[in-house]
């Protein structure tokens, strides 16, 4: 049991799951973004710790790249979110259900 908790993958899994849950549950666009960022954080953390564990330096590179991608994505995403709020006057993701049915 303790070995499971000690494993870095446990933390990564937990954080990923919480992010996933948050994404499925929350309606507010900001929290949806937050959840996505949390999931990416979890995977980046897993990369770093596992690269240390397996002595493979590519994991560290991957960590950097995930960070960069998260940043880029967040930029554009937040811009889109601002347009969304301008159009629908609220940040509720349920307002974007035109593809219903």
């Amino acid at each position: 049991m303790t070995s499971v908790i000690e494993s870095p993958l446990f933390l990564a899994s937990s954080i990923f799951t919480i992010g996933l849950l948050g994404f499925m549950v929350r309606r507010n666009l900001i929290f949806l973004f937050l959840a996505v960022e949390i999931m990416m954080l979890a995977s980046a953390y897993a990369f770093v710790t596992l690269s240390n564990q397996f002595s493979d330096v590519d994991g560290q590179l991957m960590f950097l790249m995930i960070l960069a991608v998260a940043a880029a994505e967040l930029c554009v995403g937040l811009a889109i979110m601002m347009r969304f709020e301008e159009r629908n006057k609220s940040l509720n993701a349920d307002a974007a259900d035109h593809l219903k049915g």
Partner: protein
Amino acid sequence: MSAYYISVFLSILAILLALSARQAMHGILYLLFGLIALAFNLSLLGSGYGAVLLMIIYAGAIMVLFVFVVMLLNQPPSHLEVTVGALARQFLGPLMLGLCVFAFMIFATSTSAVNAIQGAEPFSVKAIAEALFRDGWFFIELISLLLTAALIGAFHVGKRQES
């Protein structure tokens, strides 16, 4: 050892609080706290490079961007939230699914040989830098292109429609 457990506990708690916050700003701040705890965890594991990078880039740039945008949107508190009761109603299905995913991940990690392998030393910054400039220069160029594209995209999308 106990410091490790504390950092694990804190980061999980912070993330949980972040996603169950009622106001966006609170959520972001909780996430920031979670990042600090995670950086603490990483440095305990010996990846000082990872910890610092997390702090500078993630907490320092990305989260700040979030904060700025939330402030820009200037939503009154009532706009930012759905009631907890509604949350609870919709929570059950996703909770089940999430638990299944979590269970599988734990199952996978516990039965795999991952835990058995222990590396000799965590990588030093010097080793990482060498690897970056020797093998990973191409990816750096790609990252810079990506960031440029994101910059242009965000600039264009974020422009207020003048029509």
